[in-house]
């Protein structure tokens, strides 16, 4: 049982609903909603959205969504992940034509390929590649990343007529830092919201102007009462994985008697993890945030092993188990899973592996999650 916040309906409630619709269809009614703003698509938390914002764009995150893949079958073979296939589908269908540009940060082999595939697909807007380093702890990585950030800024100016000044970048950084702080607070106060409200609030921020999202989060958090530990019931789990763009799984965990208490997800804590240092020169500060963060599976960092991070999350949140939500055909996550699984087994933390794909077979998900919660209760 969660204590539901006093959300000021209908204004904020309406915003939450619109935010929710937007996640699946970010371009819907864009001209009506934001007639003076240009949208720039991106896919990953290694994208410097502060830079896009400073150049005057609204960064809009493209997620998997749901639907059929038809057009994309002529562009990608079956052994590519659902995110790549669904975004390709939506790009080809014209559903994302409100975008002025699309930024593809270099993460995995699939993203590396789709950046070029989309470039060759003659979309109505340019596809810009951001080749950030893969080995974050290597000598020269920072210098290279800094140069690549400057190159991106130069491309925004030359190809989009959108220059980036250091002052504008500082302002954008401050806004996104504020969003990060607010999201962290939202996470700390998740008990005050229903599972669906919580995820909508968290995820909708990725497709609306950050200024709007900050106002929304501030207003819902104002009226939140302090969380009470005793209200929490049922086995606590953390989610580990990639893109979670709808709350089916956390809702199911809750309905079956468990509770999601934190996560290590691309669309979850990795989005707001670690602030940009506002006292530093802004380009360098942006670079340092990527180097400081715990890496995702597509990055290698000798100084920052991911297993330790996941274990510390379990420890800090008092979670009893971990639920891996991994996309089929995602090599980086699938490799990491084996090492993380061993690390968790070594310290006696049970874990469940769920593989997601284009469609979510609800019955099968339910069986697994229910069995896992029963397992956690038994131990």
């Amino acid at each position, binding site marked *: 049982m969660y204590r539901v916040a006093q959300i000021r309906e209908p204004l904020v409630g309406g915003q939450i609903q619109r935010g929710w619709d937007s996640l699946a269809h970010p371009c819907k009614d864009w001209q009506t909603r934001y007639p003076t703003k240009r949208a720039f698509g991106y896919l990953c938390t290694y994208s410097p959205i502060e830079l896009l914002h400073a150049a005057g764009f609204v960064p809009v995150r493209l997620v998997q969504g749901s639907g059929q893949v038809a057009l994309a079958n*002529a*562009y*990608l*073979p079956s*052994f*590519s992940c659902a995110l790549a296939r669904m975004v390709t589908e939506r790009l080809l269908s014209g559903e994302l034509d409100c975008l002025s540009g699309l930024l593809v940060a*270099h993460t*995995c*082999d*699939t993203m*590396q*390929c*789709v*950046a*070029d*595939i989309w*470039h*060759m*697909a003659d979309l109505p807007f340019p596809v810009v*590649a951001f*080749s950030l*380093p*893969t*080995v974050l702890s*290597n*000598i*020269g*990585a920072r*210098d*290279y990343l800094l*140069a*690549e950030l400057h*190159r991106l800024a130069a491309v925004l100016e030359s190809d989009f007529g959108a220059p980036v000044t250091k002052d504008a970048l500082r302002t954008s950084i401050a806004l996104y830092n504020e969003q990060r702080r607010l999201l962290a607070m939202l996470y700390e106060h998740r008990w005050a919201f229903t599972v669906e409200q919580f995820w909508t609030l968290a995820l909708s921020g990725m497709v609306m102007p950050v200024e709007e999202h900050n106002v929304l989060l501030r207003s819902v958090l104002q009226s939140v009462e302090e969380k009470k530990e005793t209200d929490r019931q049922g086995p606590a789990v953390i989610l580990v994985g990639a893109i979670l763009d709808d709350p089916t799984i956390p809702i199911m965990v809750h309905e079956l008697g468990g509770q999601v208490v934190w996560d290590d997800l691309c669309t979850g804590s990795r989005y707001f993890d670690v602030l940009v240092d506002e006292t530093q020169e802004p380009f360098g500060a942006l670079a340092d945030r990527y180097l400081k963060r715990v890496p995702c*599976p*597509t990055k*290698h960092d000798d100084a920052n092993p991911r297993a330790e991070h996941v274990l510390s999350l379990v420890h800090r949140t008092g979670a009893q188990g971990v639920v891996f939500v991994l996309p*089929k*055909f995602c*090599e*980086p996550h*699938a*490799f*990491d*899973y*084996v*090492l993380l*699984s061993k690390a968790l087994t070594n310290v006696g933390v049970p874990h469940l592996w769920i593989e997601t794909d284009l469609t979510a077979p609800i019955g099968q998900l339910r069986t697994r999650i229910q069995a896992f919660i029963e397992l956690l209760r038994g131990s």
Partner: protein
Amino acid sequence: MVEKRYKKLKTAAELQRLMQWHYTRIRLPRLGRPLAWVTSGAPVEILRAMGVIAVYPENYGALCGARREAVSLCEAAEAQGYSPDLCSYARTSLGSVFQSERAPMGGLPQPDLLIACNNICGTVIKWYEAVAAHYGVPLFILDTPFIHGAFEPHALAYVVAQLEAMIRFVERTTGRRLSMKRLERTVRLANETVQLWSEIRALCKARPSPLNAPDLFVNMAPIVVLRGTEGAVRFYRHLKAEVEMRVKNGIGAIPEEKYRLLWDNIAIWHHLYRFYNYFVDYDACFVVDTYTGGWSQEIPEGQSALMEGIATAYATVFLNQSLEYRSRLMERLIREYDVDGFVMHCNRSCKPYSLGQYAMKRRVTEGTGVPGLIIESDMCDARAFAAEAVKTRIQAFMETLAERK
């Protein structure tokens, strides 16, 4: 019955001895010489110059695939939790580590250090992380940023800085020092090998082509695993002489060459001869391919810019370049080798090589007018090969080519 269609090279015996020697010698007592597992795109010249023995798990994967012994190793890796959707070289290699008793030659000798370069793919980083965790040995990763447009100066500077760090890493890990003189010598040998191999491949522009795809794939092994050695140079000199002789005497690799084809992607190791024989049945020869030409970059010699030369050569390999670059490369090869059709192996194990094939196929046919065929399989995992489906597609494609003649 399968092998009789294939015209065996006289140098095949020398190749076999050379590769056997490589696999035997890595198991001999090392006498203090450190041994490194290395990715196919790593700058091995540096290691060789320091006397480090280099061993190639990818080549081992190809060997297991060709011997049809990869499946049980993949199963061993899958039993440890590795998804069957992962690269089959990685699964085969890890399987050979977890269950060496199942592996050909008992697997590869335990490494003292690991060197991975992501110019071929990002999967090698995850694979080598797993190997490093298993053996508890140090890993160095050379990060060569992917080139979507141009090879930027800051990318070059990054790779050069890392090469210098790599040298220090190897020195620290092995206690050996790099001599620039020895490095220059190794680079000279590597360049000579690369040049010989390029010339051999270029001889296939002749009609009929002296070599077919299996020849290209089998004979590229020394350039991958023995690049920078005298043995490799000697071998390729002999191979080149034999291939020149075939050209001079008009001897083709297949009985009758009616169609000249281009191959894209890694070979289907577990059906190497059988698969290409399906094409020989239609008098089609693969005169050129995109994979074996991967080792075609010579490193500019001369000490002052040697590091930059090595960095550029390794950072600009074709798999580290955009799909447009690769499409232009294919178009150029089709023109230069007078190719009638191209076949792309959509290889489940290799996303960088395969995901862009649908887009590339359209671009290349548009640019050259030449038709293409996509065949789905896996380079090493024999479970992903459906013979009937493959034969049907080949038949339909060859009928298309026949109509065009």
